[in-house]
């Protein structure tokens, strides 16, 4: 974080890619992109592109653990070898293992797991192109793919990353801001419920900055939520139960 960026991250109130601090990059979505999967989605936050596939609910291979009273969600977040500046070795890193876990714990809170006892729901996330904010893009893609699979959800989940450049809180970090910024605060939100489903933090933050970050994240989620709804509309009547 103390590293010197190649270009100033903020200049006249604008970020390296010309955005305002609280401005999110363009978000694009596609669902049903993988014929084999029960649900799938391709989501881009600017140049960050994640492909999500959902298989299940299905009977798991015997050696995997199931629960007698609910479905078990398994999540695999993975970066394709060509998705990063230096080639990424395909073997899972400790970082990927941790992210898989926090994404899983984000999704568990919105899936009606008790409707599918003894089964698994597998969520596979492949980062195809990484330009920062890959884990939050992955969550949005995962949620969309779950909805595309027709799996009943309490709410859609929207991932938004927040960061810091000096004292300025910014939204939706790109790679440069992620590498050279002063903090990273990835957040996932069940938008209508107002629930926080993922929240991690890197860097040194004042409590008030965290609070401001959360507010900006909720604000940015609104638009992404709208896009998700429109992407899904006409395809399925999403089962949303209160």
């Amino acid at each position: 974080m103390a590293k010197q960026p190649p270009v100033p991250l903020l200049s006249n109130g604008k970020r390296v890619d010309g955005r305002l601090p609280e401005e999110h990059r363009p978000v694009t979505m596609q669902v049903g992109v993988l014929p084999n999967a029960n649900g799938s989605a391709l989501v881009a936050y600017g140049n960050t592109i994640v492909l999500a596939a959902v298989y299940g609910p299905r009977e798991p291979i015997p050696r995997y653990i199931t629960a007698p009273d609910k479905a078990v969600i398994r999540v695999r977040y993975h970066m394709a070898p060509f998705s990063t500046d230096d080639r990424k070795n395909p073997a899972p890193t400790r970082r990927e293992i941790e992210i898989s876990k926090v994404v899983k714990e984000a999704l568990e809170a919105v899936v009606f797991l008790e409707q599918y006892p003894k089964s698994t729901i597998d969520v596979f996330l492949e980062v195809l192109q990484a330009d920062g904010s890959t884990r939050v893009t992955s969550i949005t893609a995962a949620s969309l793919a779950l909805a595309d699979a027709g799996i009943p959800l309490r709410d859609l989940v929207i991932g938004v990353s927040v960061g810091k450049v000096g004292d300025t809180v910014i939204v939706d970090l790109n790679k440069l801001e992620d590498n050279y910024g002063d903090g990273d605060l990835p957040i996932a939100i069940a938008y209508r419920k107002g629930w926080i489903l993922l929240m991690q933090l890197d860097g040194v933050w004042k409590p008030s900055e965290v609070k401001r970050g959360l507010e900006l994240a909720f604000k940015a989620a609104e638009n992404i939520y709208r896009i998700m709804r429109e992407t899904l509309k006409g395809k399925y009547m999403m089962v949303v139960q209160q």
Partner: protein
Amino acid sequence: MSYPFEIIPSLRRETLRRLISEGKRPDNRQLLGMRDLSIRVGVVKTADGSAIVNLGNTKVIAGVKFELGKPFEDTPNEGNLIVNLETPPLAAPTFEPGPPDENAIEIARIIDRALRHSNYIPLRDLVIIPGKSVYTMWIDIYVLNHDGNLIDSSMLAAVSAIANAQVPRAIIDGDNVKLDKSTKVQLNVNPQNMPLTVTYYKIDKYLIVDPTLEEEVMSDGRFTVASDGENIVALQKGSGYFTPEEVDLMINNTISIVKDLKIKVLEMVKTPAGSLML
């Protein structure tokens, strides 16, 4: 990656066999007809070269990355080429996470041999300091949706990503070599040497190409011919058995298929696509 994906009911099998014996296929193709092919290159901005191939419902993406490497002792004047193929679990219900299994390894090695012998890639251009420092060229092939014929579609993705590849400039500073990723020059492939594969599947005594997954699962034999349109640069017999006459037929047939197909491929890899769509 394991077969079969699912049991095909015997009634369905019978129908398909009868169709094929009449020279037809469920999707109205000829026995030697391919599905619709689309290739878009330059779709992954973080890669030095990339391509996504849609062959029917089979989707394969490939990315090229250049890294610094050391040459092998017996080839001091050539860059290194590594072909890796992954079958991530999102591509099929039976694929599992983990290192490439025997099926993935086999395909990567067929493609590796075809690329190497065809002389499509100018490996001699990938030397930085002879005997000391070369480029290592990674071809990472990633299956996104498996609906049959992974060998041919992976080969298509590989050659297309290579056609799209740009080499980052090497900066030599005394004994130190670094790559400057902001300055890249187009890789000079030899298009006339571009290899492609045609993989034949046997159902009863009939040979078909470009099977769907369903056709692939019920086939009794598999045979791959890799050619640059003139010579044979790799062969791989998979399951089943073949007679010398069948081999002869497949080889000759491949040469003419590849000749035609290469024209299409070379056209499709000309213009980089704007963005990644599946």
